[in-house]
């Protein structure tokens, strides 16, 4: 069940990223929904699930984008592991705090990507800080929305269960 949910979230975010890439032509908008999905899985499920989600999501995106295969996979695996470890260590529960982790993960992902690119090209790449900032903002907003929606959904289910249970107990009484 857990594996199915993780796979569904990762593949869903890959599909969404591919489908919405029309709005990223020429760097018009910068966003990485797969990274948001990986951090979401890591915070909800833990470091191991985060790592696996990062590997699958990153490799899928590498394949679809025509870049070096393994580049995004490595970065997202590390980010998924770190986010999961952080979430487990500090028990981050509030949506706003989780969104902050998404922001930090986006920044770390960008910096690690530049570092890895520098190792491959043997020269430090030019950093587009405005695009990076834009990506952090969009990813954080998307992440926050996802966490709030999950909280509300879980809350609504719990409320409905408790209501039905109390009605049942009144009837019994």
């Amino acid at each position, binding site marked *: 069940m857990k594996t199915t949910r993780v796979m569904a979230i990762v593949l869903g975010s*890959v599909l969404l990223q591919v489908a919405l890439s029309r709005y990223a*032509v020429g760097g*018009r908008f910068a966003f990485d929904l797969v990274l948001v999905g990986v951090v979401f899985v890591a915070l909800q499920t833990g470091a191991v699930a985060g790592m696996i989600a990062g590997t699958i999501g990153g490799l899928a995106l590498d394949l679809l984008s*025509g870049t070096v*295969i393994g580049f995004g996979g490595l970065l997202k695996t*590390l980010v998924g592991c770190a986010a999961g470890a952080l979430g487990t260590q500090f028990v981050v529960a509030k949506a706003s705090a989780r969104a902050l982790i998404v922001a930090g993960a986006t920044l770390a992902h960008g910096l690690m990507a530049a570092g890895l690119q520098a190792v491959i090209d043997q020269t430090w790449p030019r950093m587009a800080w405005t695009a990076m900032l834009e*990506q952090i903002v969009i990813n954080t907003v998307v992440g926050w929305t996802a966490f709030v929606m999950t909280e509300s959904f879980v809350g609504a289910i719990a409320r409905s269960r408790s209501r039905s249970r109390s009605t049942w107990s009144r009837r019994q009484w």
Partner: protein
Amino acid sequence: MLSSRRTVTLLVVLCLGHVLLISAQVPGKSGSSALNGAAFGAASRIQRMMAGLSDGIGGLWSHYAGLRNASRDNDQLRRQVLDLEGALAAERAKAAKVTSLEEALALQKTVVPPTLAARVIAGNPVPGVMTASLDRGTADGVRPNMGVINASGVIGRVIANPSRSACAVQLLIDRSAAAGATIESSGTNGLVTGGFADGNLRMTLVSSAATIASGDRVVTSGQDGFYPSGFLIGRVAQVSGTGKNREIVVAPAVDFGRLDVVLIVLAAPPVADVKAKRP
């Protein structure tokens, strides 16, 4: 739940696997082309579907708004057609003059390469990679390295692995893109490269003796084998430094954030050769 030691082992194994995968491709970037091609083909289908859906929804409103302004637009377009017909006649006269001059001077004839209209259906899913997907592929005669232009100027070139019905274009602002260029006013040649955070291009390999001023038009030289010569790349926005340290900033003519319909240059342009045949 796996133990902490197992988690670390899994992390190390996954990272090593990725590093091996990367190092297998980096020297020649080979081995993944077929896989990449198949994945690109599958992704382009989703992107085409998404583009169609988005256009359909947007079209509902624009068609309604269009109907309300149809009569006024008709008048405006009629006037525009008349103006364009006049301009076309003047251009035809000029072209005829050029042809007769080429014949008289025994120059190699200017060949206008055929083009194919295509729609931009998506960008690259990885942020920072400046490529775009077009809805034309090998079935339409598209091959790697063909130049892509639009009414404003040069956009980029088709990169490897086009699928049957889609292809990817490396935009001129990508960090590994370059084009042979000429400064129109002085005829100075150089190389225009992309990948700068400000969205502008830089012109390198320019003679340090050449006089370059802001506002000069930069056009394709046709010597790189990808782009036909004479197409606008942009205008010189800034020249700073002197000698070997001179930096020439070129503002691109194309707004890469708003690409819609583009033209694929179907024939690879011949390398510029303006030598007159000696008698």
